[in-house]
C-alpha cells in the first residue's frame, strides 16, 4: 500500500521535481486590468514577434504570445465587457510536454515550461494538447524590413519556419537577473528583480511576477488572496499564472 501511495506521489508532484528551485509565478488582477493592450505590444517588441499582416490574421495564423481575450456579457443597454490576458500558463503538469517526440518542450528546475527552438521539429502536437491555445506555430520565415531589423532583441532568437513558440516568462530577463545576482555574490535573485516585459509595461500594475517559493514575495501574497483562481482549474494542469477575480456588484 505504501508503495502505491509513493508511486502516486511521484506522478503527481509537479513536473517530477520534488521542489522547484525558483517557482516563477505571475498574478494578474482582473479587477485592475483595463484591457489597454500595453502588455501585448511590450511582448511583441521584447520577444521579436513578427507582424503577420491582415491576410495571415484572417487565416488565424497571428503571433501573439500574450493576447487579451474579451468576454461580452448581457444585452445592449446593460452590456458588460470583461478582459482576460491569456498567456502561456507555464503549467506544472503541462499537457503539452508529454507528447513532444523530441523533448523540445520540458519542465525545468525553475518551474518554467520551456521551449527549445533549435530542437523543435514542428509536429505541432503540443499546440493541439494545450487547453489554453497559447502556442503559436511559425508557418513562414518572417522578415523585418530594412530599418526595423535594428529593433530586434539580441537576447531572443529570431524563429524560423516550422518552429513552435510560446511565452517564456521572458527567460532572457530571468537569466540576466541571475547573472547580476552572481556578480553580487548572491545565491538567490531578490523579489522584484525580474520583471517580464508585460509586467513592466502594465500601467495599472495588474500583473505581478515573482518567486512562489519565497513566502514574502508580492506574488505569494497575491496568490493567498480570496479572489485567486486558475483558468480551467478542473483540468488539473496546475498553472503558474494566477488570476484574481473581477469584483462585481450583484443585485
Amino acid at each position, binding site marked *: 500500500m505504501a508503495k502505491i501511495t509513493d508511486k502516486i506521489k511521484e506522478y503527481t508532484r509537479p513536473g517530477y521535481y520534488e521542489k522547484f528551485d525558483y517557482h516563477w509565478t505571475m498574478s494578474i488582477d482582473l479587477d485592475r486590468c483595463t484591457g489597454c493592450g500595453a502588455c501585448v505590444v511590450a511582448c511583441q517588441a521584447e520577444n521579436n514577434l513578427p507582424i503577420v499582416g491582415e491576410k495571415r490574421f484572417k487565416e488565424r495564423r497571428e503571433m501573439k504570445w500574450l493576447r487579451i481575450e474579451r468576454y461580452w456579457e448581457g444585452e445592449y443597454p446593460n452590456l458588460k465587457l470583461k478582459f482576460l490576458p491569456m498567456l502561456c500558463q507555464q503549467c506544472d503538469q503541462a499537457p503539452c510536454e508529454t507528447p513532444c517526440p523530441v523533448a523540445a518542450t*520540458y519542465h*525545468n528546475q525553475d518551474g518554467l515550461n520551456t521551449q527549445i527552438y533549435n530542437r523543435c521539429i514542428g509536429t505541432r502536437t503540443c499546440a493541439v494538447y494545450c487547453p489554453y491555445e497559447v502556442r503559436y506555430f511559425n508557418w513562414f520565415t518572417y522578415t523585418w524590413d530594412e530599418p526595423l531589423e535594428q529593433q530586434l532583441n539580441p*537576447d531572443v532568437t529570431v524563429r524560423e519556419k516550422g518552429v513552435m513558440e510560446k511565452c517564456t516568462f521572458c527567460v532572457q530577463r530571468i*537569466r540576466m537577473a541571475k547573472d547580476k545576482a552572481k556578480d553580487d555574490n548572491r545565491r538567490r535573485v531578490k523579489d522584484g528583480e525580474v520583471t517580464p516585459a508585460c509586467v513592466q509595461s502594465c500601467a495599472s500594475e495588474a500583473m505581478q511576477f515573482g518567486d512562489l517559493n519565497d513566502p514574502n514575495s508580492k506574488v505569494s501574497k497575491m496568490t493567498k488572496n480570496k479572489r485567486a483562481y486558475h483558468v480551467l482549474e478542473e483540468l488539473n494542469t496546475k498553472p503558474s499564472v494566477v488570476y484574481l477575480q473581477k469584483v462585481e456588484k450583484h443585485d
Partner: protein
Amino acid sequence: MSISVGDAISSFKIPILMGVMVIFGFGIGYLINYTFFSDRSPVQPINFSHKIHVTDNNIQCMHCHAYVDKTPSAGVPSVKKCMGCHKAIATDKPEIIKLTEYWDKQEPIPWIKVHDVPDFVYFTHKRHIKAGIECQTCHGPIETMARVTRVSSLKMPWCVDCHTEKQVENGRDCVTCHK
C-alpha cells in the same frame, strides 16, 4: 575450370576505376579545403599576429579585449585602439600601412569571425571569466598563434562535457544556454 574474380569484373573496369578516382579526388579536395580554406583558420584582411603582441611584447589579453569580464562578448578592439600604439610603433611595416589606410578611411576592419556560435545560443564571456576559466581552455594556445586558429569544436557536446565535469549549477538545463 576455375572461377576468377578478375574475369567477372573485367567488363566493369572503367566504371570502377572512375569510381576510385572520384573518391580519391574527393579526399584530396577535402584535405585542400581543410588546410587552406576552412573556417578554422581563415586568412584575415590584416595579418595580425597574437604571437608578436602577447608572447614577444607581453601585452595582456584584457588590454585589447577590454569587455571580456564585463559583457557577454569579449570585444574586438576598435581601429582607434590599434592606432593608439601604431601611430608611433612599427609604422613602416606593410601590415601597419594597411591598418593606417583603414584609419584614414575611418572604416572598421572587416575581420572574419573564427569563434562563432549560432544565434540560438546564449554564450557569455563574463560568467566564464568570473568562474576562473583561462582564455586558453577554449581558445587553445592563442598567445603563440601567428594566425588565429579555432582549436575547439564549439559544438554542444563539447560545452556540455565541460559543464558536467565542472558540475555547473543548472549547467545541463537547456535554457541556460539556449535562448
